[in-house]
């Protein structure tokens, strides 16, 4: 078990005469036993970051230390880390037992019977004891995934690295493995860096999540903090499904003026905005309420465009102007209770509560005003 520290890590690739920056000045520090999820869209540099930690890519600049020991130039095999790959990367000519013993045979001087005992123990822990003598090609995807995990766990490394380990599984199995992985990591207490593009995995699994975009670290915080207090518009849009609603607005006195609506704000919110006048108003779909009739300036008469029933809830797409072209008009997405009856073409009143809005700088994307986590928690208590 160990701490892991990335200090101003940068990676550039040479493509002909062009220099491509894959990872740009990323600093992270991961506590002993922590589960950190690195998340971002494809091409954001998250896998490259992980591969640099593994020693599979060289580090262009910056320092990487495991347990306060700088390992920039330490070979992969001497870093005492284990990695689980998306493709599992099992050795096809070896049985499951041989796959799992390989690392111990290569990296330790343990006697064969000791290795055998450890492999059997790990096999039992993962529920793959009866598969130990089979070849990887005889196993299902889920079983192969377990073997790949087992191969990492049996070595008892300082750090686990996981590169989208669940993305080749079907949805149901993925949900199961998500829970199991968390339980395992909790039991083993091994420092883990987990890379994924799946925001559900990021939200549910990590102690903290690090969000990367374009090779730059956007935010690193607990999942709930990232969700409720995003550092910028990218983080706000990346987390949450359906994604947060954004409207370009301009500040005019104590009102936010958009193309088709005006939204009054009070002094407290106004104070957060400073000098900026080009703003983006953000509101999460689940914060929007449908009410009986318009009684407040934060409520808007809208027309239902599309309803997507999800069972427990409905996702509704609303327009401000009933006559607008549905293709181009500004849409407000709201998530409402599954029992609420709405259908296409209905006129409804939507409330955008002021305590749930986020306001971003229109130029830099930086968050100027977020709903506070305490407020969000209070609302849950009331409901």
């Amino acid at each position, binding site marked *: 078990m160990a701490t892991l520290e990335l200090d101003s890590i940068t990676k550039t690739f040479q493509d002909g005469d062009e220099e491509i920056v894959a990872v740009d000045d990323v600093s992270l520090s991961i506590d002993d036993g922590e589960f950190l999820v690195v998340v971002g869209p494809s091409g954001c540099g998250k896998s490259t970051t992980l591969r640099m930690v593994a020693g599979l890519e060289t580090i262009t600049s910056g320092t990487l230390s495991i347990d306060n020991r700088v390992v920039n130039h330490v070979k992969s095999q001497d870093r005492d880390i284990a990695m689980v*790959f998306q*493709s599992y990367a099992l*050795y096809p000519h070896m049985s499951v037992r041989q796959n799992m013993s390989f690392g111990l045979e290569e990296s330790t001087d343990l006697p064969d019977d000791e290795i055998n005992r450890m492999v059997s123990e790990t096999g039992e822990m993962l529920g793959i004891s009866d598969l130990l003598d089979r070849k990887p090609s005889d196993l299902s995807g889920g079983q192969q995934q377990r073997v790949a995990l087992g191969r990492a766990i049996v070595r008892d490394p300082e750090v686990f690295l996981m590169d989208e380990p669940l993305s080749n599984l079907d949805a149901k199995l993925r949900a199961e493995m998500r829970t199991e992985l968390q339980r395992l990591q909790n039991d083993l207490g091994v420092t883990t860096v987990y890379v994924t593009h799946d925001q559900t995995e990021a939200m549910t699994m990590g102690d903290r999540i690090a969000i990367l975009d374009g090779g730059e670290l956007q935010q690193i915080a607990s999942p709930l903090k990232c969700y409720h207090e995003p550092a910028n518009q990218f983080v706000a849009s990346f987390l949450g499904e359906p994604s947060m609603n954004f409207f370009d607005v301009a500040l005019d006195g104590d009102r936010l003026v958009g193309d088709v609506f005006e939204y009054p704000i009070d002094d407290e919110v106004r104070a957060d905005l400073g000098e900026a006048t080009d703003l983006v108003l953000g509101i999460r779909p689940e914060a929007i309420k449908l009410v009986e009739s318009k009684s407040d300036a934060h409520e808007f008469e809208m027309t239902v465009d599309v309803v997507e029933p999800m069972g427990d809830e409905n996702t509704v797409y609303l327009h401000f102007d009933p006559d607008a072209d549905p293709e181009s008009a500004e849409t407000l997405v709201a998530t409402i209770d599954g029992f609420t009856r709405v259908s296409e073409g209905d006129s409804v009143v939507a409330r955008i509560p002021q305590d749930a809005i986020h306001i971003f700088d229109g130029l830099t994307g930086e968050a100027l005003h977020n709903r506070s986590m305490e407020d969000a928690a209070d609302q849950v208590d009331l409901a």
Partner: protein
Amino acid sequence: MSDSEPRTDGGATTIGRLRRNLDRMTVEGAGLYVVLVFAAAFYLVPIESGLVTSFKTGTAIIQTAPFAPPGPSGLTFEKWQTAIDTLLRGMGNSLLYAVPATVISAFVGSITAYGLTIPTWKKSYKAVVLMLIIAGIFIPYQAVLVPLTQFWSQWAQLDQVLSFVWALGIDDDYVGIVELVITHVAYGIPICTLLFRTYYKTMSDEMIESARLDGATLRRVYRRIVLPLSGPMFAVVLIYQFTQIWNDLLFTLVIVSTESSPAAPVVLILAGLGSSLEGQDFALRMAGAFFAALPTLAVYIFFGEEFAEGVAA
């Protein structure tokens, strides 16, 4: 043939099925079969003719068509007997260099290809080495004959180095066998390297990386991961190299040169078999040719399954 009719498996007799198939046969279908049968015959007739000729007496060869089987009076196994007697010692000599040269060139090719593919060495260095190796494939045998003779007779005088072997009572002509092994290995490395490199390119990078993270050194990755997975490509390379080396006449001509030498390979003896001042003994030549080809056939049969897998890869 048309697929419009439902396929049923009724009418259990073979005759019935055959008749139904014939009923459905269109003109194009029939034409296709005629062409196929003709093509098959075109390829098989020379082999068949050779085989029946090898069992014919001298008179039968003159009296019957080349592809017709010998009559009871024209049948003889005497030519095969003579061919085996004459070629057997050459077979031994050929195996003596063909087997080691094949195995060594395949193995060296595999290691070279591994070095050029898997490790993260600088691409620019790898490219130069690879270019040189690939250029080696295109050097024709004829171009190296003179330098080769000079090399073995003036630069590397192996017969002196190996004098302790001749002291043991082994004929010093066998130095030719050693020279043949080295020559064929050198000549075989480029093509073997290229074949293995193509194969290793398709190997999963993540699997190799995983082995490196598991603590395996480059050498151990080769030994425990790459080599065990190279089986199909080894089959391809072994078959290809063995056939090449076994059938090569040119190098044996310049290095061993005389069929009377105790170290004469089978191809050298075969070249003179059945020809004399009285004329060609066709039956003996055919029997000799078939006998000399048996080992290559055996290698194909032995590695056939892996060969198919390797070619498909």
